[in-house]
């Protein structure tokens, strides 16, 4: 991808503002899907444009434009200025350019093999082979193999000296098999789109034993057809790391986004049960709960060097020994709230302004092996792979459904269970965390489609977690 001479274009901007920044984004995503033995999508979709942002009289104004010429940028700066000017007397907060810290640097996501090292035809063949393995029986009524590469190149320059280039190569992959016997339908996946989404290259296809995994997924979909319904009651719950990621996302990540606490999101994503005076005091979870904002974990989906406001990204403890220490707020939120934050002022693309977004929010590993966790449970359920999620606008009352579960009896996993669900309230739930798994149970996941903001933005986030056990959780099955 060719980039513009942004510094020259920045120098040519002629508007009477206190600060101006230009962020160029080019992103290409290439989905390929084989369902039921037939190609469904072979695509290559590219978006490219510029976000020109100005600050005048304490108010930022922006103009997102696909016109990447000098005239286009000059015109964009003038229009952004006009927007900021009309709003300046009515600003929620009067900012200075301290909200856009000056940094120079670059980030390159880790990968071994470029996208074009495997041809489209070879990729179709890999997905077709995976489909064949998924269809272990005629009761598999539909099966699908999916992969998507994403290449994002961004550059940010500003009048106070920022010049940041970041280059990301990412992969998403999933396998899915739906088994049906009359109205009884069960779907098993490789974790859905949240199962495999990482910063990596085509080497992903070498590292995983995809065909063996596909066969296991197909077999488990069939197994679920005849499985017992998940029992109903209050019991110990062991959660696999591919479900823990969404538990963290919904009941920790969003609740701690500082723009939510400041009320920006009350009309859409919602507010938070967390208040500003909770930072440094609130016992968010049990003492085993250690949550980090970690943009440095290699290959995690939302690793980066700088956020879209220019702030350098560093690893920080958000919750330590269960106590809330720090919010998920970029420079604007840190200035508005006075609460310590992180570099998470991020935009979905060139056509949206940055807001507070969680990035990599991880639960740090503990000391217990998987066998020790299961062995500690007298009566409980183990759940894997999310299939349903919902939480209220204060991030309190959640409910999750999973694809696959096992009954735990007297320290051993016994029967397979279908339609497992659980519900709870965030703060007491995290305080019921009793065991945190060790490094061997630690899984790195993420989600490509976290929605938030007005105008709406979908963004990529990463979550890594060990297997965990919570006690006295409301567990239930299907209809």
């Amino acid at each position, binding site marked *: 991808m060719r980039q513009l001479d942004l510094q020259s274009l920045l120098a040519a901007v002629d508007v009477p503002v206190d600060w101006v920044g230009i962020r160029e984004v080019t992103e290409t995503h290439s989905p390929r899907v084989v*369902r039921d033995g*037939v*190609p469904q999508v*072979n695509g*290559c*979709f*590219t*978006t490219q*444009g510029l976000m020109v942002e100005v600050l005048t009289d304490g108010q*930022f*104004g*922006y*103009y*997102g434009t*696909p*016109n990447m*010429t000098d005239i*286009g940028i000059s015109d964009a700066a003038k*229009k*952004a200025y006009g927007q900021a000017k*009309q*709003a300046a007397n*009515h*600003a*929620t907060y009067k900012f200075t350019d301290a909200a856009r810290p000056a940094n120079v640097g670059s980030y390159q996501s880790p990968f071994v093999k470029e996208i074009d090292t495997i041809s*489209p*035809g070879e990729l*179709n*063949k890999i997905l077709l082979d995976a489909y064949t393995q998924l269809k272990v029986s005629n009761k598999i*009524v539909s099966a699908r193999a999916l992969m998507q590469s994403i290449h994002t190149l961004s550059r940010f320059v500003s009048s106070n000296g920022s010049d940041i280039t970041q280059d990301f190569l990412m992969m998403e992959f999933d396998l899915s098999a*739906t088994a049906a016997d*009359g*109205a009884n*339908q069960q*779907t098993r996946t490789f974790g859905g789109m949240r199962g495999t989404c990482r910063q990596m290259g085509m080497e992903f296809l070498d590292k995983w034993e995809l065909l063996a995994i596909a066969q296991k997924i197909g077999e488990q979909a069939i197994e679920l057809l005849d499985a017992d319904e998940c029992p109903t009651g209050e019991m110990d719950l062991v959660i696999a790391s591919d479900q823990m990621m969404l538990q963290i996302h919904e009941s920790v990540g969003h609740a701690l986004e500082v723009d939510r606490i400041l*009320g*920006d999101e*009350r*009309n*859409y994503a*919602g*507010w938070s049960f967390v208040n500003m005076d909770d930072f440094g005091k609130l016992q968010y979870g049990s003492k085993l709960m250690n949550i980090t904002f970690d943009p440095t974990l290699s290959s995690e989906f939302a690793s980066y060097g700088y956020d879209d406001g220019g702030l350098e990204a560093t690893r920080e403890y958000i919750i330590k020994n269960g106590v809330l220490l720090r919010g998920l707020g970029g420079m604007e939120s840190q200035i508005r709230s006075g609460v310590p934050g992180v570099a998470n002022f991020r935009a979905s693309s060139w*056509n949206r*302004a940055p*807001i507070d977004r969680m990035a990599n929010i991880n639960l740090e590993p503990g000391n217990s092996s998987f066998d020790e966790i299961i062995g500690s449970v007298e009566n409980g359920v183990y759940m894997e792979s999310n299939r349903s999620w*919902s939480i*209220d*606008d204060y991030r309190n*009352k959640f*409910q999750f459904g999973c694809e696959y579960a096992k009954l735990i009896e007297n320290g051993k996993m016994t029967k397979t269970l279908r339609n497992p*669900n659980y*519900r709870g*309230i965030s703060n007491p739930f995290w305080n019921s965390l009793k065991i945190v798994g060790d490094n061997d149970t630690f899984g790195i996941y993420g989600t490509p489609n976290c929605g938030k903001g*007005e*105008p*709406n*933005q*979908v963004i990529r986030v990463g979550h890594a977690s060990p297997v965990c056990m919570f006690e006295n959780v409301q567990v239930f099955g*299907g*209809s």
Partner: protein
Amino acid sequence: MEKIFKELCAILFTELKNDELLTLSFSGENSQFIRINSASIRQIGLVDDATLGLKFIANKRTCEGSITVSGNKDVDMARGIAEVKRMRLESKDILEDPFLVLPTNAGSSREIKNSSSLPFDNAVDALLPAMQGVDLVGIFANGRMYRGNANSLGQQHWFETESHCLDYSLVTKEHQMVKGTYANTDWDQGAYESYIAHSIEKLELMNHKPVRVDPGMYRTWFEAGAVADFLDMFSWNGISEASLQQGCSGFGKMRHSDHRLSPKFTFSEDFSSGLVPKFNSNGEVAPESLPLISSGKLTNTLVSSRTAEEYGAQTNYAENGEELRSPHMSPGDLRTEDILNKLDEGLYLSNIHYLNWSDNPGGRITGLTRYACFWVEQGQIVAPIETMRFDDTFYRFFGSELESVGSSAEVIPDVLTYGQRNLGAITCPGILTKEFQLTL
């Protein structure tokens, strides 16, 4: 935008070789977004955006792509030609597609709706005075939107409209909220101020101390906004024929066991409002009206041409994802002035939040109450309720437990702006159910 689209069509169609087919789709906007918090400006800006989608068919293969349209003819032409060349190469390499949907020329259309809009430079002064003195948070989206489609056989469609929408919440000091959406095509300052004033009056009701209700079954009135959220779920593993065929639809019981909803429930896809184009991304034109559920019986599903090819069904020119584009639920006979008396004792839910299938084959949906939701006794609103989770199946609240349907249907605009501003609306009335299950 239309001129740019037509120029690109002319250039790219001449790039084709024998037996190659190309369908182009266009989606663009010139939009203003004003984000508001505490009745002041949080963020403000403009976005120009346009995307050209390309669907290339050759050698029994289908390739898809898209480019951003910059407005610079030379740049856009180069991007488009490069994309056609890429797809031509790829079509020689990928798997054969046995369910090709070939373009046709079934006639062209052109629909341009001009409005008396609110100029971008005047928006703040027009919006803010009416909301002073209250805590208003939300988003104002304003401007023109464009959709186009053309194929190499000569068919061309163009749709262009202009609209504004202030989607907002009013918030009391005790964090109780009232939801409002002021949307139209022509800007009317008086009507806007009147709408906001009415919302502020409703906010007074929220000043009562909220009451806690226990999990359990309740008689419940759902306002149209809440019903629209339920109907929206039908676009996700719902009334799609492909979803039914692939075993991931909540409508399986209706298809396989002739399970029926209430005779009072009638639902269709209805394009007569003109809020969205009738053509889809293949350039196919949907019928003006398609009955989906008639008096509780599943009469049609949404069938795309590709699904029709794959499963031997009859296409009704649904979009490729078979989601609803212009849904309409028929009103019933419960008059607005009778709602509270008929409810007598129970829940009055204005809005619901964060819905998801909790048991898709069983039609069970979970979610939460949000905004102006009240406890009602003896036909009178007593107080707002604290947020509650529900988990119940549409086979009950649109079926066995559906007691009455409101007599007036409301237009609930689609306010989502993921990637671009959405077009369209759900038109539906409120409903009264004998039972509805709260769980947490």
